[in-house]
């Protein structure tokens, strides 16, 4: 699996092209904003009847990353479910699948703004996970360091010589890394947004997801 290595607070991390973060020394795989059950939520809100394809697609990719890394610990960085009611309405197959993925490994659910409470799946449920020298939480807090977060669904637009390309991306500097959304049907926030420009140091870099992840200085203004 191709990845870009970088270090944060002394920890050696790999940003995978899929959007997952791999901490080899601790055998820990971190994914953010899975938004499982988005289609069920749309249904409950009175939308159309959708088979839960997005959930399946997200789980397939997660399964592939788990097979490649054989991670002993998985940290889901919040907004794993589109809301707390989703769990009851996830089809049995999806529920079973999550149980299968969980078998034989430690699993941590960090709370997000979409799923701010305990859920009925195995694993630890935490507001945040300190794992020195790092801390895993859903939303970045300014002034912290060694922080791994998600929430914003960052993406980056690069103007190449022949065409502009926009993709989900990791953003990192010496204090933190913000993960792209791992879920299938999720929008994104450009790296040029005020939220990122204020939060990230001037020398911050972006790792663009894709077949081969690419590292570039984080774009801070539209080009």
């Amino acid at each position, binding site marked *: 699996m191709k990845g870009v290595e970088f270090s944060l607070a002394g920890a050696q991390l790999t940003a995978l092209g899929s959007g997952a973060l791999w901490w080899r020394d601790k055998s820990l795989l971190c994914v953010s904003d899975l938004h499982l059950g988005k*289609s069920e939520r749309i249904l409950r809100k009175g*939308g*159309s*009847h*959708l*088979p839960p*394809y*997005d959930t*399946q*697609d997200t789980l397939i990719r997660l399964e592939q990353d788990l097979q490649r890394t054989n991670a002993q610990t998985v940290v889901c960085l919040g907004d794993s479910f589109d809301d707390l009611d989703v769990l009851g309405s996830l089809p049995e197959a999806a529920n079973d699948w999550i149980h299968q993925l969980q078998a034989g490994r430690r699993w941590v659910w960090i709370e997000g703004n979409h799923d701010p409470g305990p859920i009925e799946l195995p694993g630890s449920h935490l507001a945040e996970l300190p794992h020195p020298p790092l801390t895993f939480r859903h939303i970045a807090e300014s002034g912290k360091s060694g922080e791994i977060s998600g929430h914003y669904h960052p993406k980056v637009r*690069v*103007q*190449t*010589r*022949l*065409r502009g*390309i926009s993709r989900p991306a990791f953003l990192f500097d010496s204090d933190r890394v913000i993960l792209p959304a791992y879920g299938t049907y999720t929008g994104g926030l450009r790296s040029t947004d005020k939220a990122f420009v204020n939060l990230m140091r001037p020398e911050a870099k972006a790792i*663009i997801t*894709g*077949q*081969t992840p*690419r*590292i*570039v*200085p984080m774009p801070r203004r539209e080009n």
Partner: protein
Amino acid sequence: MSDLPPQFQHWFAQKGWSIHPHQQDMLNRSSAPALLLIAPTGGGKTLAGFLPTLTDLATSDHTGMHTLYVSPLKALAADIKRNLRTPVDEMGLNIRIEDRTGDTPNFHKKRQRADPPHILLTTPESLALLTSYEDAARTFAGLKRIVIDEIHALAESKRGDQLMLALARLEAICPGLKRVGLSATVDKPEDIATFLACNPNPCEIIQADPGPDPDIAMLTTSEAPPWSGGGAAYAIPAVLEQVKKHKTTLIFHNTRAQAEIFFHNLWLANDEGLPIGIHHGSLDRAQRTKVEAAMVRGDLRAIVCTGSLDLGIDWGDVDLVIQIGAPKNVKRLVQRIGRANHRYNAPSKALLVPANRFEVIECVAALQAVQEHDLDGETQGAGPLDVLCQHILLRAASGPFMADDLYAEMTTAGAYADLTRADFDTCLEFCATGGYALRAYDQWQRLMQRPDGQWQLRDPRTAAKLRMNAGTIQDSDLLKVRMRRSRGGKPLGEIEESFAASLTPGDTFLIGGKIVKYEGLREMTVEVSRDKGRKPKVATFSGTKFSTSTQLSQRILKLFQKEDWPELPRHTAEWLHLHKSLSRLPEPGRLLIESFPHDNRHHICVYGFAGRNAQQTLGLLLTKRMEDMGLAPMGFVATDYATLIWGLDAVTDPTPLFDKDSLHHGLDSWLAGNALMKRTFRGAATIAGLIERNHMGQRKSGRQATFSSDILYDTLLKYDPDHLMMKITRQEAMRGLVDFARIDEMLDRVQDRIDLVQLDRVPPLAAPLFLEVGKVAVSGSAEERLLAEEEAALMTAAGLST
């Protein structure tokens, strides 16, 4: 020889008319189980179809419905009602004639079912609905004849297949029903006869005198047509001149958007204020009716129109037809030309106006084809299964049935004569459960088998819902446009939802020849206000885009082989000469590919002449092959005659690109994730009842429907790729939007005769493709390489290394 009853002879004599030979023929052979009349416009076709009905009703007592008339257009049904009333009233016949279409008020419709008129005029959709009611047998009791007008138009579409299934149903209710088809000139009458007959019964064909050849030419203008585009704005002054010289001119366009833009420009140049109207399918019904009425009164000097006027409504004294843009299809051109001069035995007058330089060549080729009576025919495939599914569900809505009976009934329809029992059973299973992958979902569990073996609706309440989803017309989702007012302003027409979604408040566009300003969307209605500006944002609601027919494409290739082209205007002949001197012209039986650099990219231009849809598909398949071969393609654009592809690397050996097996393989895997497939799937799934079109009168937003149908498609692809809907989608893909059949045909024609010409500049014939709209971007290794380049550049610039 059947003599006319006295009151008919008297009426004909009074009018000073004599009966046409084909009208007499229709009368003589009125006992034939099926009868097809081929006659040109103005040949008294409709009267020929109705004479046996009128004489029968005049000479015998008949209670209940006697004759059912089906036409593809609502307007045509209303028009025929008017035209039939005249002889019926003048002869004092006691015959009740009514029409029934989507526009008929509900209370009226209900009464028609209980107390049907002698002659009911309707459309295929309304007929399908009529047969879906529990009391269908009572409504149609005594029915003797069915007359299908403009059957050539219906035979080419799913609407015709639906109609023939409804006829099979009627045949079961009223055995011995006589079928009559009325058709314009076609290339293969036998095909239409098979389509019309109750299989395996024969169908007799009556050919009326085709009348004199049309007087047809290309409009000459002082200004040369532009290199690209479809507006033909350059020809406005010349068109206006023609309008002035004639009594009434019909100005045909291939798409609604082009018609709107042309109409707008025509009015800007119409200094004398000649009365000119516009008519197309997106306009509000009230507006259309107004234009039609003005037309009949002879108040209009010209009418800008689209296919909505293709079929035979009688429009008074049209003495000139102008076709803007290449006709794409010779048969349709001939039928359009027939709209001018409704007097039998007088030549019709028509002018062709090419919209761009390439269309000049196409128009000349089409003119030659018309002169040689060389019509293009596309063979019709077997009846589509989505229509079959809809029919099964509607059949269930009318009452319980035995599978064996329904199967036997359906195979009497010509298009379904070869339907296998296995395919039928799959369709029935789909209607009952939704198919394997969807069996867990309640909303698709619709039929159940009773202990006595009959199939019926699981929940009788679904009948209403099924009726609401009936129909096979797949117009893209349209939103009503209204003037903004406190309480529902004036309706103007409809625009496509995708177009509406691209508008922001303040944007202006054209509709019904008016420039309006977009104000906002309210409850699925686009609200607009009048705008005083002169330049609108272009209306992109598209109408149908046709592909140039195989036969016409071959004619163009043959034309290219000549030494010189005196029949072409000088500007166009010079263009071809220049191209020939720098490269070479495409040839029949060979495939020309040009390879050249331009604007930091490498290009190839593939002159496949396979029609727009197939060239588009070829672009998708070739870019996929190039991706696999590491040539880093970036995008393509297609026209009716060529596909232009650009990428990071040059193609030096095209042969492996066109390997037939690899292209087929590419098609299979590409089809899987493709947007066109999803669109095709959506159409088929809507017709087959998998996706709902309407929900109790409330139209679902197109975007909602797209979302759910796309996800359904992905789900089936992954978990049940052999699902009936997937099979139907793949079958349709071979024709229609994907049109792979024509790529196959081209590859067979070309074999290994592929010529690569390498150039260092843009070749003249390829130049217009750079101006073509609708470029498709391809992402893949080219993006990866561009990103890698950019990564290196950015990191170096930042003083970093990776």
